[in-house]
C-alpha cells in the first residue's frame, strides 16, 4: 500500500516536472513571439486614410465600407478652390447653370452653393448627405483645381483592423497612417505633390 502511494507520488512528480518544463517552453515561445513583434512595433497608433493623390474616384468607397453609410466623405480643401461660378464638381457637364437638382452632379445634392461676391461662389459639403461616391471629386479634378477630395472621417470610421474599402481599392490609395496626423488634406498642394 505504501509502495503504491510512493509510486503515485513519483508519477505525479514526474508529470509535474514535465508540465513545468512544457509550460516554461510555451511561456518563452509566447514571450519570444511578442518580443519579435515588439522589435517591429511602435507606440504610435494607426488609422486608415485615403491618399487623395492616388485616389481614382472609382466609387467603391460609397459601397464597400462596413458601415451602411460610408465613413468616407467628400472634404473641401478650400485653400485650393477657385470659387468658380461654373464648378466642375457641382454641375453636370453640359448642364444649365441653374441650381436645380437635375443640373447637379452630386446624386444626393450634398453640395451647397453660396454666392460670395461677383463672380465667386463657395461650395460647402453637407456631410450628412454626402455618401462618399466621389463624383464631384472626379468632376473637380477634371475641370477645376481638384480642391474636392475624399477622406475617411474619423468621427465615423470604426477603425477596423482590416479596412474593407482598402481591400477593394483598385489604386491602393488607402493605407494606415500615424494617428497623430490622421488626414491628408490637399491644401498643402505643392508640398504633398513634391513630397
Amino acid at each position, binding site marked *: 500500500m505504501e509502495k503504491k502511494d510512493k509510486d503515485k507520488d513519483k508519477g505525479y512528480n514526474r508529470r509535474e516536472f514535465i508540465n513545468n518544463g512544457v509550460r516554461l517552453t510555451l511561456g518563452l515561445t*509566447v514571450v519570444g513571439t511578442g518580443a*519579435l513583434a515588439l522589435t517591429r512595433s511602435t507606440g504610435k*497608433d494607426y488609422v486608415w486614410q485615403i491618399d487623395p493623390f492616388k485616389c481614382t474616384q472609382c466609387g467603391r468607397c460609397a459601397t464597400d465600407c462596413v*458601415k451602411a453609410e460610408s465613413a468616407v466623405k467628400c*472634404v473641401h480643401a478650400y485653400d485650393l478652390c477657385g470659387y468658380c461660378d461654373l464648378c466642375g464638381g457641382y454641375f453636370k457637364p453640359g448642364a444649365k447653370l441653374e441650381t436645380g437638382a437635375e443640373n447637379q452632379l452630386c446624386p444626393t445634392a450634398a453640395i451647397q452653393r453660396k454666392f460670395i*461676391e461677383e463672380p465667386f461662389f463657395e461650395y460647402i459639403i453637407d456631410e450628412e448627405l454626402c455618401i462618399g461616391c466621389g463624383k464631384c471629386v472626379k468632376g473637380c479634378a477634371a475641370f477645376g483645381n481638384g480642391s474636392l477630395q475624399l477622406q475617411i472621417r474619423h468621427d465615423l470610421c470604426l477603425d477596423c483592423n482590416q479596412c474593407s474599402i482598402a481591400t477593394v481599392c*483598385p489604386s491602393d490609395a488607402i493605407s494606415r497612417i500615424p494617428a497623430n496626423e490622421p488626414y491628408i488634406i490637399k491644401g498643402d498642394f505643392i508640398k504633398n505633390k513634391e513630397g
Partner: protein
Amino acid sequence: MLKKIPNITTLIILFLLLTGNLLQAQQRFPKPEFETGYVQPSPTTPEPRSIALEYFDVFVLLAVLSLASWLAVRKRSRRGLLWLSIFSLIYFGFYRDGCICSIGAIQNVALSIFDPAYAISLAALLFFILPLLFALFFGRTFCAAACPLGAIQDLLVINPISIPSWIRKTLGFIPVIYLGLSVLFAATGSDFIICRYDPFVGIFRMDGPFLMIFLGITFLLLGMFFARPYCRVFCPYGVLLGWLSRFSKWHLSITPSECIKCKLCKDSCPFDAIEPPVSQEYRAPEVARKNLKRFILYVGLIPVLTLLGGWIGYKSHIYLSRVHPDVYLAELMITNPELKQDQENLDIQAFLESGDTFEQLVEEASLIRNKYKTGGWVLGGFIGLVLGITLMNQVVFRRREDYEPHKGDCFSCGRCMDYCPVDKVPQRKIKFKSYGPRE
C-alpha cells in the same frame, strides 16, 4: 467648354504667380482675393480616438483577465464570471464595436513579423499576448469572461445537446486549419480573413453587410443547441489558448474538495469538456500492449503526416496565392487580355491608369507566389503535425480518478462549480433560518 474667367484682378494675380512661382501653375484657377471680407472656412478634421484610450482598453483587458482568473480559480463564482462576461460584452463588444480584439490580433502579429513595412501598435500586441499568458497560468479565463464573442454566445446557450466525442474531435480540427490559413494570408499581406468573417462584429455595431449579420444570427441560433459554435468550431485564437491551457499552472476545479463522482457536473457542461474517470482496464497487460502498438504507429505517422501535409500545401500554393489581389489581377490579365479594353473593370482600369507596367505587376505577383510556395509547405506541414499529435493523444491514457475538466477545451465558464454538490452547506441559511444544523 470654357470656364468663366473670374476677373481682371485675379488674372493679374495669376500672371504674377505664374512668373513668381511656376509650381503654383498646377492650380488652374487661382484663389481669388475677396473684397467683401469673406473669411475662408477651413476643412474640419474630426480627431480619431486618442491613443490614451487605446491603452485604457489594454488596462480594462488586464483587469478583466485578473478578475476572471480570480473568480474562476479562487473565488469559484459562476455568477461573478457571468456578470464579468456581460461587462466585457458591453465594453469590448457594443462600446468598442468589437475592434480591437485578441482573435484578430493574431493577424497583426503575423504581419508585423513578416512585413518589415508594417509596425504593430503596442496595444494590439498586448491584446495578443496577455490572454495567452493568463491561459498559461490560469486556463482559458479569457474565453470565460473577457471575450465579447464568447460572451454573446454563452448568454444564448439554452438547450445544449451533447455531441459525440469523435464529431467534436473532427470539428475541432477546423480551427487549426483556420488558424494556419489566417496566419498565412496575414503574413503574405493578402487578407485578414478572421476580421472579414467575424460573425458577431456586425451585431456589435448594429450595422454591417448582409453576410456579416446573417452569419452572426445563424451562429447565435445554432448556439442555442450547439453551445458556443464559433468558439468550438472556428475560433483560431482558441487553438492557441487551448494548447497553453493544457499546461496551465492553476486551473478551475469542479469540486472544492473530494469528488463524489455524482456525474452532475458532466451533465451541466454545455461544451462536453468534462472527462469522466478512466477505468483501470487500460492497465491490463493485453490492452496496454495493444495501446503501445497503436501509440508507436501514430508516433511513426507524425513525420509522414507532416511531410504529406507540407506537400499538399505546396501543391495548392497557386490556389492559395489567388487570395492576394496583385496575384489575382496579374493572372486575370494574363488569362483574359481582352479585359484591358473593358471600361467596367475598375481594377484593371485603375492599374492601367496608375502608370505601372504590366511586367512590374507580373514580377510582383510572382514574388508573392514564391512566398506562397514556402508558406504552403509550412501551412500544410503545420496542419499535418497537429493532426499527427491529435491522433497520438488518442492513445495516451492518464490516470483520472475523478470527473475533471479537459484543460484544453474548458472555457472556465464555471457552470460545473455551481452544480457540484460537494460542500454545498448553506451556511447562511443555517444561521438565519430554522433549518437546523446538518451533521
